[in-house]
């Protein structure tokens, strides 16, 4: 199978994720969409590693995973505490950090 | 080829630099004990003055004449990667400027001794800031490393910002922020030029340097186009600092809102860093650019002379009035600086000192009036000479010095500037000479408004009533008021102590400028050599045929 298909899939996943981030209000869903985008990038990194026959892309994908895991921890904690104080997990309700 | 030794040297200037810092830091533990703090600050300032006198005595004019550019040189590497040095040294021009600073500060402290400060402010903080300002001024005049100069140039703003912003008049917030932003803007533009200069030196010398002497040595070989850009960067910074029209509008605000002692330091010394910068940095480092752009500066200078004078007459506020007269005077200094002759350079340098003295005294007189009347408005005063003849006499002397009456210090400098500028710039000089009529106009106008005529003016009347002389609407017998010293008293002993040194110096320098000129002249000659434009030679026949 041509590696191009993996790239197409990756682009598709990324787009889905991006749209999800933009249109959904639920923080958990937005969060998952971000994960989706990260993994789409991971997929393309792995694909490029395969195409070029080098391991750099694989290594970077691992880095991204580690960072994403850390991010999930912090992010979910924030969402939890926001939910506790505001009784809502909508990102539009947490708009205190403005001008 | 680096001319900056890396092995230290004479520590005198370092002591001059650090002594006020130590004094300022000493204010913190003494903050609860105000008398002790004042005494310590005064002792520091006096010691500093004594040390400067020692420095002056040790300064050799012979060595300066025989080509030694700086004396009391001290240099150690600072950031070797960038080629910066902690390098200090003085030539005659810097020497007279630090002497002026050290001379003014003790007097100003005496003036501020019993000043009523805004609520919540302590005298120890006030005096600490004064000493800090003195320290940065010492640094800015003694630095021989351009980067070090820049650091002090910016550091100068900090104590002055706090002096204006914390101890100033009602509109102090606006004034201090305006002052700070304006100066910072100029400073940042200068920083860009500074980096450009460093890159240029790296091109020409192989390794970049900030040492003034090294940069000067490559000045003649730097292409004129490069010089012009670098010159403009420095020029904007100095033109804002000096200030030249049209960069001047921060000065009236800052001068008016600053407490008097800060105003004296600001207009008397700190602004001179601008004109000092022209002489020390713009001309020797960018000689071709200076000559190419001289007409621009001269136009600004001449506009400033007339414009400042006319605006001075239009002012309602005494401090703003003095500030605008200073703008006119800075025009004279700029004219002398960009006329490229030894007389004009020497005149401009001497003018910096003399203007510090005469304007300083004018500001002090304003401060004395405000201390009595509580108002800065010119129209609130009138006929004061009846009540306080000594005060009026001192004001007149300060005014006469400001309008450069022969026999006062300023005449010597103004004469040198004009006579030195005339051969090269006849038109600008003629306009500047007409400016002396305006100088007489604004000084005499001010004197007539506040001092002459019948006793009048809200501030005076209020003060007299508060002193128990005359009631609302009652005729005031000035003789009675003067007799009782009530309401609007004449100078006190402390105030005489502030003014007497100024009066003596103003008159003595009018008749015997020799000692100061002897110090200035060799350095001026060195500057002439660095610019590479020989003195115009008197040539019979054609007017202005030199150019």
């Amino acid at each position: 199978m041509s590696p191009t298909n993996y790239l197409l899939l990756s682009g598709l996943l990324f787009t889905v994720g991006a749209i999800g981030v933009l249109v959904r209000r639920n923080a958990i869903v937005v969060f998952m969409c971000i994960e989706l985008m990260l993994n789409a990038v991971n997929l393309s990194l792995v694909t490029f590693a395969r195409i070029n026959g080098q391991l750099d892309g694989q290594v970077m994908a691992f880095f991204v995973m580690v960072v994403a895991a850390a991010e999930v921890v912090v992010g979910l904690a924030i969402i939890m505490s926001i939910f506790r104080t505001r009784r809502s997990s909508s990102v539009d309700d947490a708009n205190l950090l403005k001008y | 080829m680096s001319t900056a030794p890396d092995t230290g040297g004479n520590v005198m200037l370092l002591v001059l630099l650090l002594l006020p810092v130590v004094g300022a830091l000493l204010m913190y533990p003494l903050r609860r004990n105000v008398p002790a703090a004042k005494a310590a600050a005064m002792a520091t300032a006096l010691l500093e003055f004594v040390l400067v006198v020692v420095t002056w005595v040790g300064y050799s004019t012979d060595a300066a004449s025989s080509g030694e550019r700086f004396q009391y040189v001290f240099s150690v590497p600072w950031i070797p990667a960038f080629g910066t040095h902690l390098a200090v040294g003085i030539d005659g021009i810097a020497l007279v400027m630090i002497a002026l600073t050290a001379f003014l500060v003790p007097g100003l402290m005496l003036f501020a001794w019993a000043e009523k400060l805004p609520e919540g402010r302590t005298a120890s903080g006030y005096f600490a800031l004064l000493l800090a300002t003195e320290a940065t001024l010492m640094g800015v005049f003694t630095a021989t490393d351009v980067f070090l100069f820049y650091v002090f140039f910016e550091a100068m703003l900090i104590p002055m910002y706090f002096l204006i912003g914390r101890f100033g008049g009602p509109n102090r917030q606006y004034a201090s922020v305006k002052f700070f932003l304006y100066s910072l803007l100029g400073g940042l533009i200068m920083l860009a030029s500074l980096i450009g200069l460093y890159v240029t030196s790296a091109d020409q010398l192989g390794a970049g340097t900030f040492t003034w002497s090294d940069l000067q040595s490559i000045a003649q070989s730097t292409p004129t186009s490069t010089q012009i850009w670098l010159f403009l960067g420095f020029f904007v910074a100095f033109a804002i600092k000096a200030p030249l029209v049209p960069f001047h509008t921060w000065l009236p605000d800052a001068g008016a809102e600053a407490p008097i002692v800060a105003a004296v330091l600001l207009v008397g010394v700190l602004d001179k860093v601008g004109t000092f910068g022209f002489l020390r940095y713009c001309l020797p480092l960018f000689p071709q650019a200076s000559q190419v752009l001289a007409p621009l500066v001269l136009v600004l200078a001449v506009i400033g002379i007339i414009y400042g004078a006319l605006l001075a007459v239009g002012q309602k506020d005494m401090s703003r009035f003095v500030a605008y007269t200073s703008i006119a005077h800075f025009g004279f200094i700029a004219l002398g600086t960009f006329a490229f002759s030894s007389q004009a350079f020497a005149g401009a340098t001497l003018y910096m000192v003399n203007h510090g003295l005469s304007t300083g005294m004018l500001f002090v007189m304003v401060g004395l009036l405000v201390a009595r009347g509580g108002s800065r408005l010119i129209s609130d005063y009138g006929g004061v000479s009846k009540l306080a003849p000594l005060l009026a006499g001192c004001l007149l002397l300060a005014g006469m010095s400001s309008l450069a009456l022969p026999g006062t210090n300023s005449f010597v400098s103004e004469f040198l500037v004009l006579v030195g500028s005339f051969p090269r710039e006849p038109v600008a000089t003629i306009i500047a000479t007409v400016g002396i009529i305006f100088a007489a106009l604004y000084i005499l106008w001010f004197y007539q408004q506040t001092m002459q005529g019948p006793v009048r003016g809200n501030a005076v009347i209020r003060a007299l009533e508060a002193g128990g002389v005359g009631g609302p609407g009652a005729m005031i017998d000035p003789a009675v008021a003067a007799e009782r010293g009530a309401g609007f008293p004449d100078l006190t002993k402390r105030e005489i102590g502030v003014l007497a040194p100024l009066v003596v110096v103003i008159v003595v320098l009018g008749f015997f400028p020799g000692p100061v000129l002897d110090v200035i002249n060799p350095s001026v000659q060195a500057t002439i050599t660095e610019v590479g434009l020989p003195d115009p030679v008197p040539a019979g026949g054609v007017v202005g045929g030199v150019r």
Partner: protein
Amino acid sequence: MTAPPEVLPAGGAASAAWLLFAIPALSAVVLFLAGKRANAWGHWLGVGSVLASFALGVVIFVQTLGVAPEQRTTEVSLYSWIASGTLDVDFGLRIDPLSLTFVLLITGVGSLIHIYSVGYMAPHEGAEPSSDSSRRRFFAQLNLFVAAMLVLVLGNNFVLLYLGWEGVGLASYLLIGFYQDRPSAATAAKKAFLMNRVGDVGLALAIFLLWLELGTLQYTEVFARIGELGGGTILAITLLLLLGACGKSGQFPLQAWLPDAMEGPTPVSALIHAATMVTAGVYLIARTNPIYDLSATGRVVVALIGVVTLLIGAIIGCAYDDIKKVLAYSTVSQIGYMILAVGLGPAGYALGIFHLLTHGFFKAGLFLGAGSVMHAMNDDVNMRHFGGLGRRMPITFVTFGLGYLALIGFPFLSGYFSKDAIIEAAFGQEGWQGWVYGGAATLAAGLTAFYMTRLMIMTFFGEERWQKLTAPNGEHYHPHESPPVMTGPMILLAIGSVFAGFVLSAVGLNQWLAPSLGELEESTHGVLPHALVPWLVLAFSALGVLVAYLVVGRRPTPVERPEPVSLPVRAARRDLYANAVNESVIERPGIWLTRALVFLDNRGVDGLVNGLAAGLGGGSARLRRLQTGFVRSYALSMLGGSVFVVAALLAVRFA
């Protein structure tokens, strides 16, 4: 023209010439600083210092007389004053016949006026003498003036001249404004200083030009090398110097300050604004005679300025009722004569100085007499309130009368010798110049006789109009003779007015001055024969006296000024519109310009700065609205930004 004499170093008493001005200067400093302690004796210190100067001046004069004329020009260098590059201004003195003549005039007349002032400035009766510090202040300022004036005439270079020049300006400013609580005095003082400064600009520019061209400012060197310069440059220098002279000497077009200067105490008017300071312009032109010798055009301008001024002064003098202002305009007119004289060149330099000296005597005497009258009349100056005072104050009357006769050129009194000599020299010019100069001078002599006779009649003769009036303070007038300390100097000056002309011409003033001014050239081919001129002048003067007698003397003088009057009188009463012109051409536009500039500076220049600040502030206030706090809108803008960057990269890559 003879070769300039060799300059020798001063010896003997002359080497101490600096004491001449140092003594009064020191006295001034002591009086300024001593405060109330000196109130009781300060005036005597002032008198003593000027007398000491005078004594030293006499000693130097006698010493100089003892040497041959060509050795009378000496210099003494005190120290180097201003030195930079090739410029080296010496604080040096030049002692030569011209400066010595002035030294004697300044200290001699100055001493008399100092003595007179002891009485004139005495505190009013009833006041505690030690409580009044105004007399001490007065003497301090008067001493300062004497010192500055001596520096002016003794300096051996132009910068020192300028020092004295502005120094006397300061003293004049202080003394005109002496009665500080009078707004008019303060304004007059300011006006005097400002108009003088206009002249000073001319003098300063002349100095710069000399420096540019010759590289020296020392008289000796300048005069030795002035011939190297081109005609245009010399003309420019002469005109600039003339501008300086016009300012200081109250010459057209800068004459308007001098009458206003009468706001000062009368001794000041006598010393500064009649005898000495205002003649500094004449001194300047006489001193720089080697320059003027080279420019015929320059001399013509000088002479024309003199002619215009002497006519203006004489015409306006006829219309005023203020006794001091009449004398002031008389001074303007007489200095016009002197300027005319020095404008005649070698034929007139010495005559100008001659008239300056005799004028110093009789005009100082006239002013002191006027002061005595004012002293008697509660400081009233309006002659319409006087009348018949001759009987009440005989000494004043006689001394004033002698001064009057000297001024109008009564035969064999001072003015007769000096003024007639000028008019003769004026007629001695060729062509139109002779007619214009001589004619105007003769006409003005007639006018002088008219206004002075009018003044005499209104003040000393006729009905005692003051009997029916009360002074402004409500008291009745009680005219009385002044104390001896005042009449003494008046008597001495009157003696001078009578004999100075005769004595000075008999002992040969012209030969004495020759080392400084060159030999006096006798004109041989004038437009009128020499013998005729004195008769002509005498006839005009007699006519002036007669007309004055017919117009003023035979009719009672109205106490109120008659209105309306004919156009010429109206114009003369308004100073021939000089002040109106100054006001409408300079003052008003100046005020408007200032206001406009203040507006421009606040709204324009500062407005730009504040506008920039406000613009930045306002802009960011709007921009910060973009920070809505909605995470998703941030995400959208990030996405948009990324897309834009990628698109830009691609576009660059593939375009």
